[in-house]
């Protein structure tokens, strides 16, 4: 082994000379484009529309980071990833940021060496059943056939839940959500399980959404979080605080409509001033300019606006804020202070 390493080092000595371990932030700036990993298509979170534009909640996070770093919310190259490819894509540097309904777990954080930059959606795994089945609780699903989309933590939660409650089930693994819907609607499985937000998104696309109910049990905690590589703390900080800026902006009442006015001159609220760069030098500390947060917020609005636009109650997905409300409204969103 040692010998081959030596030989290999010899062969590439010339080639690799230029590849110093530059930080991701510098790479992204030099490239002028942010490579952002998203799902291959989950309406509301990340999916290309009829014109091929990526739209959705996760997409908005990518655009905000691109706006903050590159001053252009469209300077994003969206890389569709599956459950299988997402971690390699991030680890190998193919993407700079992964915003793909990825659950923050211990082993992913510690064993796979990734850095989760904060939760952008608090989710949990639920079940959807046809109304005609007459089931009102997941505990009544003994012996049921369950459709699951593979490549997520869903399979593990499902196994744990049924094992814990000592009931049996038959899993039907499904590759894409469209095929899951086909199986479920044809009655090839009694129930479909995935994150509750995904269920709502799927149900919205059915011919008769009213014929299906989402069971009250939420069987897991799914904090969905954008993540970056371990060990590049500057870049992690940029991603983390861009997300926090979106959350804080909602709390402080900064919206895409008024952000430019508010940023024009320092106002009365010192926290807003620091956030929008009219006071202090928070942007500089991160290696960005003072207006980074202004651009991030202007790109797609604050957290609340992004939520309402993509998955809120007025969209076909129709999700309530629930756990994803600001802490002041009884939710879990709690951005650390900008100071």
């Amino acid at each position: 082994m040692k010998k081959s390493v030596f030989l290999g080092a010899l062969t590439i000595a010339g080639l690799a000379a230029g590849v110093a371990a530059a930080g991701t932030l510098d790479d992204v700036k030099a490239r002028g484009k942010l490579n952002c990993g998203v799902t291959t298509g989950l309406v509301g979170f990340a999916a290309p529309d009829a014109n091929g534009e990526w739209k959705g909640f996760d997409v908005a996070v990518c655009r905000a980071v691109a706006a903050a770093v590159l001053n252009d919310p469209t300077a994003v190259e969206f890389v569709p990833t599956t459950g299988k490819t997402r971690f390699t894509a991030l680890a190998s540097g193919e993407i700079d940021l992964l915003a793909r309904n990825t659950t923050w777990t211990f082993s992913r954080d510690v064993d796979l060496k990734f850095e989760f930059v904060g939760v952008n959606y608090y989710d949990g795994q639920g079940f959807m059943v046809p109304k005609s089945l007459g089931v009102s609780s997941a505990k009544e699903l003994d012996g049921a056939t369950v459709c699951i989309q593979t490549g997520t933590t869903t399979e593990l939660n499902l196994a744990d839940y049924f094992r814990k409650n000592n009931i049996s089930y038959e899993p039907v693994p499904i590759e894409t959500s469209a095929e899951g819907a086909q199986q479920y609607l044809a009655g090839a499985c009694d129930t479909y399980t995935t994150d509750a937000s995904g269920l709502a998104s799927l149900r919205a696309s059915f011919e008769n959404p009213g014929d299906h109910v989402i069971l009250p049990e939420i069987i897991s905690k799914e904090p969905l979080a954008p993540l970056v590589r371990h060990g590049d703390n500057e870049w992690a900080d940029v991603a983390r605080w861009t997300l926090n800026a979106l959350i804080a902006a909602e709390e402080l009442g900064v919206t895409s409509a008024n952000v430019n006015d508010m940023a024009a001159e320092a106002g009365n609220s010192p926290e807003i001033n620091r956030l929008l760069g009219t006071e202090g030098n928070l942007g500089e500390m991160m290696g960005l300019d003072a207006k980074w947060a202004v651009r991030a917020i202007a790109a797609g609005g604050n957290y609340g606006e992004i939520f309402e636009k993509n998955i809120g109650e007025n969209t076909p997905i129709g999700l309530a804020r629930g756990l994803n409300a600001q802490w002041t409204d009884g939710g879990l969103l709690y951005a650390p202070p900008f100071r």
Partner: protein
Amino acid sequence: MSDTHAESVAYVRETAIPPAPAPVTEAGVVGWLRQNLFATWANAALTIAALYAIYLVLAATLPWVLGGVWTTDSLTECREVLQGRSAACFSVLTERWNQLIFGFKYPDEFYWRPSLAFVLLFLAAAPVLFFDLPRKLLLFTAVYPFLAYWLIWGGTIWAPVFAALGLVAGYVIFDRFGNQNFATGFLGGIAAALVVWILADYIVPLIASDDPLLPAVQSRDMGGFMLNMILGVVCVSLSLPFGIALALGRQSNMPLIRWISVVFIEFIRGVPLITLLFVANVVLAYFLPPGTSFDLILRVIIMITMFASAYIAEVIRGGLAALPKGQYEAADSLGLDYAQSMRLIILPQALKISIPGIVNVSVGLFKDTTLVSIITMFDLVGMIRGPILASSDWNGVYWELFGFASVLFFITCYGISQYSQWLERRLTTDHR
């Protein structure tokens, strides 16, 4: 003889009986039916069973296809138009036509570029496929890859120009020295090409204009049937030289070279393409120098090319083995060295008899390009399973889309295999 019995026989006919028409049961439509469909009882039973099977299939599909709706914007609208009737919503094809063909990210205003490249492909392929065409057309075939690259990917024209120049330089050197000593010419040619390419690496960024004639399109933006075509054409053409090299390597009398070729070929042929695509997708990145990353499409092209060259190598090996030993001995007795005998005597014949096999491998490979949908590339099948079926407009339109994909692949592959059969017939007559 004829009059020997004239006296003893009462009547001798003196003219031939005019030929009577065949019995009605043996000629015309009826005769044909009897001979071909109802020759025996068992045969008749088979015919009736076959007719019934055809009826079943047509009864199920024809009304569905003929009653199809072509002009709505979503499945919901289509269902309203149909009002509970069971018929196809072909409008998904018209509405998403561009996405199915070009993927969802190729800029609409440039659709003419891949289309033109596609049309030119026929022109470029023609002299290779049909020997009767004037040989001068091969010049266009040689230019085509660079032209097609420029058309589809766009960007500065100098990149493909220098790539071509490198090959030309390599060929010139080879032509100059290869006659005396193949090895010198070969290695010199490679060196010359490399020199040009390395130079180009410095020159191209300098002379490339910021506003090229054809704006660049990222290879990530390729999709739809176009991606299948790109992968199929590129990988088959790239795998031919590698396949020939591997086949020769496997026949070589240098043990080391032979073993390398055998291990490579058997390894690649022993694993399914999907695992190689997994390698391209999730593993290959770990084997590249840190900090480099190249396109998924390029990684996939590398893997599929490796895959195809192993199969093509086996086909060509078959061709080499099928040549009579006398050809090898004749070449040797003329005093030709290895390179000359291969280039002038063996390969032209061996390749000619391997063409049908190569075409079969190519068809198989072209069909296998659909597997890239499993590793999140949006080829035709990937577009259908991903963005189109996941969109809320068209969630639930399966048969129309998969039917369309089947028809597209059938037309292409059937066309190629008909060509291969025509060629096979032609080549057999040539040999007898």
